[in-house]
């Protein structure tokens, strides 16, 4: 936590450090000198975690705070903390290109929250846009899906309300620290959301709501959901940014058409031209995601990146019987799987073993619950 809150330490750097040192605590203990030796991240190492951060997380309070301090502040505010690899960390989010190392959470997330759809759009919403957002969010909620949005004015707030009114669950992702709500007038709405769902942020306490933060936060909105619905958006709007994050994470993008010629329609129409799915009513979301929303599947099947935490494998690896003939194959194959989930041919070529042996090993592991196959044929490690 402390590590993640350091300026200049984003998800990528965090991942490198954790993998290199075997855990966040170990990475912190190692200190900037040893980090520098890794040569992966210029900023954090050279600044030793002190100087002005560059890039996205501008505005974070300078100065280093320990994990205990951060946790203390958060708990005082009534928030809890989830870190990478921890039980309860949203699994869908874990399988995005850059999942946040730390999530501050107010309210509660439930197991079924992976059945989520993001509903986003412009802050300058028209009456039509608001109507559609509220209606769609309500329909999605009624279908048992969790509605994710960003608590912004306009479409976002309407979507949250629509879901709440339909008696459904909704998650709000903030672009600032847990110690404030932006825009301020939505504080009561945030309270209401936290009662039945959750308010989340990746930013440490004290982070102000700067524009860059919202854009960066959009990947979390997209990452929490199986698909993103854009209701009304200008041609250069944050909602489009969310849609592109969704696409990068291999998630479905839906767009609601508007009136031709109105600026609020341009973004959605652009998405439609790029191949987004046209959405008229909530049921269509469920239809096009039917392959994911099946009983038994615990979360989304399309993995662009592998599970991250290096600790994932520690337990199973230790329990693995070595020595026998399968040992070499098992080791190589595990290594190949850790790189990223893949199909059997790809894994065989990564591991340098024939596909027959790899297929057999994967089935053995599947029966032992160590790996899991996805609908697209890729196989992944089951994170521990």
């Amino acid at each position, binding site marked *: 936590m402390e590590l993640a809150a350091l300026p200049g330490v984003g998800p990528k750097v965090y991942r490198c450090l954790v993998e290199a040192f075997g855990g966040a605590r170990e990475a912190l203990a190692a200190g900037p000198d040893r980090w520098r030796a890794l040569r992966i991240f210029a900023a954090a190492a050279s600044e030793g975690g002190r100087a002005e951060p560059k890039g996205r997380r501008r505005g974070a309070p300078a100065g280093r705070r320990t994990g205990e301090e951060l946790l203390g502040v958060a708990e005082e505010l009534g928030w809890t903390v989830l870190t990478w690899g921890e039980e309860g960390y949203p699994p869908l989010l874990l399988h995005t290109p850059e999942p946040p190392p730390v999530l501050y959470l107010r309210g509660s997330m439930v197991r079924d929250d992976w059945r989520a759809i993001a509903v986003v759009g412009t802050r300058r919403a028209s009456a039509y846009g608001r109507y559609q957002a509220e209606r769609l969010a309500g329909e999605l909620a009624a279908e048992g899906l969790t509605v994710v949005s960003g608590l912004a004015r306009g479409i976002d707030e309407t979507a949250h309300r629509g879901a709440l009114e339909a008696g459904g669950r909704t998650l709000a992702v903030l672009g600032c620290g847990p110690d404030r709500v932006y825009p301020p007038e939505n504080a009561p709405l945030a309270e209401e959301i936290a009662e039945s769902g959750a308010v989340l942020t990746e930013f440490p306490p004290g982070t102000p709501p700067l524009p860059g933060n919202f854009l960066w936060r959009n990947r979390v909105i997209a990452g929490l959901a199986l698909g993103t619905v854009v209701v009304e958006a200008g041609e250069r709007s944050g909602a489009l940014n969310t849609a592109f994050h969704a696409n990068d994470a291999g998630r479905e993008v839906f767009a609601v058409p508007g009136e031709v010629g109105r600026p609020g329609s341009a973004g959605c129409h652009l998405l439609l031209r790029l191949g987004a799915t046209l959405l008229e009513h909530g049921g269509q979301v469920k*239809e096009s995601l039917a392959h994911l929303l099946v009983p038994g599947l615990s979360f989304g099947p399309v993995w662009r990146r592998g599970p991250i935490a290096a600790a994932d494998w520690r337990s199973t690896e230790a329990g693995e019987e070595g020595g026998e003939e399968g040992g070499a194959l098992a080791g190589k194959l595990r290594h190949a799987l850790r790189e990223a989930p893949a199909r059997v*041919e790809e894994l065989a070529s990564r591991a340098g073993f024939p596909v027959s042996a790899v297929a057999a090993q994967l089935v053995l592991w599947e*029966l032992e619950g160590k790996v899991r196959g996805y609908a697209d044929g890729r196989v992944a490690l089951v994170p521990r």
Partner: protein
Amino acid sequence: MLARVRSASLVGVEAVPVGVEVDVSPGLPCFDIVGLPGAAVRESRDRVRAAVRNAGLPFPLQRVTVNLAPAGLKKEGALFDLPIALALLAAAGVIPAAALEGRLVAGELSLDGAVRPVRGIVAVALLARAEGAALVLPEANLEEGEVVEGLTLEPVATLSGAVELVRGRREASGQRRARPGPGARNGGEEADLAEVAGQAAGKRALEIAAAGGHSLLLIGPPGAGKTMLARRLPSLLPPLDREEALTVTRIHSVAGMLPPGTGLLTARPFRAPHHSISLAGLLGGGAGACPGELSLAHGGVLFLDEFTEFPPHVREALRQPLEEGKLVLCRAAVRVTLPARALLVLACNPCPCGYAGDDRVACGCRPDEVARYRRRFSGPLLDRIDLAVRLNRLSAAELMEAGKGEGSALVRDRVERARARQASRLAGEEGRTNACLRPEELRRWVTLAPATRRLLERAVDHYRLSARGYYRTLRVARTIADLAGEEGVRPEHAAEALEYRVERVMGRW
């Protein structure tokens, strides 16, 4: 005056003896054929009359009656033209009747007196050999006749040539032309496994299918190489032995599928009927029970591309014959058995648009469309499939790797060794492979180490294997162990067999 000559009628892939008797007697000139002639045989009258006249031979202006015996058998085909013409000329005293003895005659006539090739010569030659007769046959069918060893062949090109032959003016051509060289390799020279880039899992499934005679399902988007792989399956099978080659050639000969000048077929057939094929076209039909695609695939591979498009009744009809390796047709009074032991390969797209699960092209199907499509998979045929594998489209870079992998010959070597192991186990039951092991045989031949047993128990639970699915897994595991050269089935053999279950592949996309 009466004259007789022997000929043959085709029933399924057999030739049965038919006696052609012609009586020429005084009376009003007429020309009758009796003895249950089929339509083509009735038309024979006109061809024979024209051919005899155009060959410059006298046609008797008397009462001509042709009888085809036995009367109870329906006769089909144009091969009676020549025997009728010769017997008629003998009855009219143009040629000596004794000259027709010891000969079996088959051939079609054209109006100008030329002798045209007929189908089924291999079967007819086998009959002639069994009857100890020389075979007078169309010259265009000579190579086909030569497939059968140990009989005298007398090829004729025209009716007058045939007349000269039986008058003894021409040397009976016992001499043979050079045999056509040994036929093409299985699958043809151009179809080698090495040309398929990547698709390691697909190639492995192909190898297992070839080794154990297992039926195979290839599922994947268009252009993934389903057809390409399926076409290479024959090249992984051991070559046909002489007996099998004769059967395959006979079937093609009866179906009229041997191109002129073709001798013994030595390559395993690959048949890929289109889904618009009729039931008769697939199974065989007509009064003579002419073999269909299924029998033409005997000894080789029957490939049903886009098999979901085949109507359900067609798929259903294939089921039993494929299981038994033969096909029984009931035609009028006779039951005809046709050979039908073929390796079944099915291919299909994963969804109506074809791109479900593809990495680059998004599937454009609505979920209900996909669901409806997938419902078509179930039922007939698919429940006979032992192995299934998903193929994915390769990238351009991966396609460049073509030609670098193992060639067919290497794989065929392993297949042959695996088949030898099976043959020693199933001694005496020729042609059977692991794919047709019965449950009691499985108990006997598939010895499971304790670890394998534990693995299978867990799999039955975890994958909810049915009894049928369990036996299927055992059969495939037996083949995988045979490929590995092991008598005991090890856990990894069983595990690999589980990987190729149809249900597993179907659950993926």
